[in-house]
């Protein structure tokens, strides 16, 4: 027998009122946090990203702090006739070598005498530094320019937006390549600075668009009548309302930042020896794919993993910040809410109100 389709309206509250009831009495921040924590993809991605960051920082150590892994990224490792990865996930009872990481879990490179695990972790660290710096830089530039252009309008807007257009018209990778050459950027910090100097354009545009809409709103008028300065209106009244946009696009920007950095290094314009990043590792070993694929595969896998995590987190944040976002409630939730509803109306009829 085919079960009859249950009409949610007939059972009790519809989706919207259920959602409203769940968020009643919560602050905006709490609502966003709740929605984000419920986003399964984003939470899984967050856990994976934290794992990657911890693995990269603790294994070979970061800065002055030593790590638990036996090799550093620049230790010369004695050559071994078998260079292939020693990591095995197949248990012995399935005919494998057992669940073990062995001496060189990602294999080793005999020619340079490097342990691939240590080298990849170093690359992950450097790529993370790059996206962190470039995110900080481009958010600062993008938010300041975008809000000034959007708030003041007029010729300031025109000048700033034409400047944005000039940079936006050239593909990011190419202008970063030329600029990296011009400023002699070979190390992690300089490449990050160069990328940050050109990555802010899309963010500036988004922030400007938000400001254009928000500055016409009544609360801005009220603040102005109350005697607030332009600076106060921008930073205290309008900017907090654009946090959603900024956070979401910064997350996605960090993702594309890793890819751009990797592509730059691959073309030979980004981070170069003796510095390593995930992109420069892929570049160093792209000829080794047919004979020693592990040298080439692992840095790429980490690029994909980090960018994928950032994408999912960005997606979760977007859903969390979007006021139009409706969660599709499970039928179970609707029914239990209806149950509570009926109990409430029976018990609290005398109290009234809501």
């Amino acid at each position: 027998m085919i079960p009859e389709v249950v009409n949610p309206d007939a059972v009790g509250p519809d989706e919207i009122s259920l959602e409203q009831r769940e968020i009643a009495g919560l602050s905006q921040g709490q609502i966003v946090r709740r929605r984000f924590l419920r986003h399964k993809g984003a939470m899984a991605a967050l856990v994976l990203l934290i794992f990657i960051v911890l693995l990269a920082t603790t294994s070979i150590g970061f800065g002055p702090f030593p790590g638990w892994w036996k090799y550093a990224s620049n230790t010369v490792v004695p050559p071994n006739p078998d260079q292939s990865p020693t990591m095995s996930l197949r248990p012995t009872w399935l005919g494998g070598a057992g669940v073990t990481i062995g001496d060189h879990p990602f294999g080793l490179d005999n020619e340079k005498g490097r342990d691939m695990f240590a080298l990849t972790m170093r690359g992950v660290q450097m790529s993370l530094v790059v996206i962190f710096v470039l995110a900080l830089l481009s958010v600062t530039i993008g938010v300041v320019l975008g809000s000034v252009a959007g708030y003041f309008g007029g010729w300031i807007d025109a000048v700033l937006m034409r400047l944005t257009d000039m940079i936006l018209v050239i593909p990011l990778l190419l202008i970063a390549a030329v600029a990296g050459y011009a400023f002699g950027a070979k190390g992690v910090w300089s490449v990050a600075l160069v990328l940050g100097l050109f990555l802010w354009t899309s963010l500036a545009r988004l922030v400007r668009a938000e400001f254009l809409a928000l500055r016409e709103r009544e609360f801005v008028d009220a603040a102005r009548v109350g005697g607030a300065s332009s600076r106060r209106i921008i930073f205290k009244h309008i900017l907090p309302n654009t946090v959603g946009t900024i956070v979401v696009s910064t997350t996605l920007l960090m993702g594309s930042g890793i890819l751009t950095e990797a592509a730059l290094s691959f073309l030979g314009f980004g981070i170069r020896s003796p510095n390593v990043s995930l992109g420069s590792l892929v570049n160093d070993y792209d000829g080794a794919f047919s004979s020693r694929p592990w040298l080439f595969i692992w840095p790429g896998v980490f690029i994909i993993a980090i960018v994928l995590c950032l994408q999912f987190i960005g997606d979760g944040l977007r859903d969390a910040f979007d006021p139009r976002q409706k969660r599709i409630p499970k039928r179970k939730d609707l029914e239990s809410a209806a149950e509570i509803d009926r109990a409430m109306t029976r018990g609290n009829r005398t109290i009234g109100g809501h």
Partner: protein
Amino acid sequence: MTTFILRRLVAAFFIVLGSSFIVYMLMANAGDPLAFTTEIASPTVRETVRASVTDALNLDVHPVARYFLWLGDVFQGDFGISARTQQPVIDDLGGRLLMTLKLVGAATVLSILVGISVGIVTALRQYSGFDYTTTFFTFVFFSLPVFWVAVILKAVGGIDFNDWLRDGAEFPAWLIVATGLAAGGICYSIAGGPLHRRLTIGAIGAGVVTAILAYISSTGWILDPGFGPIVIALFAVGIAFGVTAIMAGLGNRKALHSALTTAAIGVVTWFPLQLVFDDDGMNIWRLFGLGIVAIAVGSIVGYAYGGFDKGMSARTSAVVALLLSCVIFVDRAMQSWAEYSSSSVIRNRPIKTIGDREVRLEGSFWVVTNDTFSHLILPTVALMLISLATYTRYSRASMLEVLNQDYIRTARAKGLTERTVVIRHGFRNAMIPLATIVAFDIGGILGGAVITETVFEWNAMGRLFQTGLLSLDPNPVMAFFVVIATFAVIANLLADLLYAVLDPRIRIGS
């Protein structure tokens, strides 16, 4: 409108000017274009080269003044000479641009078509297994570093695939079964309606795909592919029904009949067409001409059926004619595959990983066409993966946005068929924001092909930029930038205009 376009054109001009100034200054700062001269052994030759390059590139004047000298030359159509080769940059600029367009064009058209179709289907079947899987894969494709994928593609799609062809081109049994099951799962997920209908469709999908793969594997079809008139007739009927179902609805009998008539004409002309194709004078323009004739025939058939909606019949038949022409073209190209593959320069390793064509290859138009395809396929796949993800996500989001509007509910409420609601009310409106994204993307994608060109060693625009920058040679780099920036601003302008044309709520210039 004219004022708007003019104003935007002027603004675009100054934007290109400004960004070229920025790049020129960066380039002037990047290093000494004469650095390569230290490699020249003889001191007298070195001095002559240095003097002549310094003179031609005006290296003795201040960079700002040099920029304006360069700009003056550019306005006269002269992009200067390359310091390294001392050849004018303009010489092979056109050829390189065409090559990049060839590479980018195929990838863009394919990813737009596939991406939009997949995006629409996922929007229609929101929260289905297909939707979740596709969304996950679009995220993965977005995260792929293109150079990493390209290197793997070269190894797997080039070397391993050619080995597989040499070894007899047979699929292992598990692959046939797995692909069949996956196809069945996709069909099950996409199909609508009650469970037993979806199960049936899924089973049919799995069966058909498994049977086709088994046939291909057991007969070695890939080594000597081709359709032949019977399969083409099947294709023709399928296309006629499919296109009518989407564009006019199968209830529209006149459209269906005109589509079927066009399909029949196409199948019958397959025989005389083979003679035309084998003619020595066959070239790409004749091919286009035949395509246009096919579309014209389709339209005439549609009109000839008459009725109050003859425009619709004509459009349907024209699309059928176009698609069928593509099938016939592919069939003819396939007939020459074995000849191409076994030719003395290809030596049965047909899938190419380097360059855009095999210069030593001599043969008929069809052999050369096969050569172009086998060079294009891997870079196209690499480029497609990423733009495919973009278009799928945008079209899904856009379609969902539209489908949640009130007028869609109204359309359903007044009893329109699902096809009319989805195609006419939903799809058309969902395409408006997408059209601007596509126009915007095409501007940027030219520059984005640099990495793919590097990995697959295409000597096109991206190579001009990369080698120019590596040898600190300003003029090739600047020529590349001017072309890319011009494309980008024109694409942006077109995107804005397109929006105004497609969406009557947007009014510009008033």
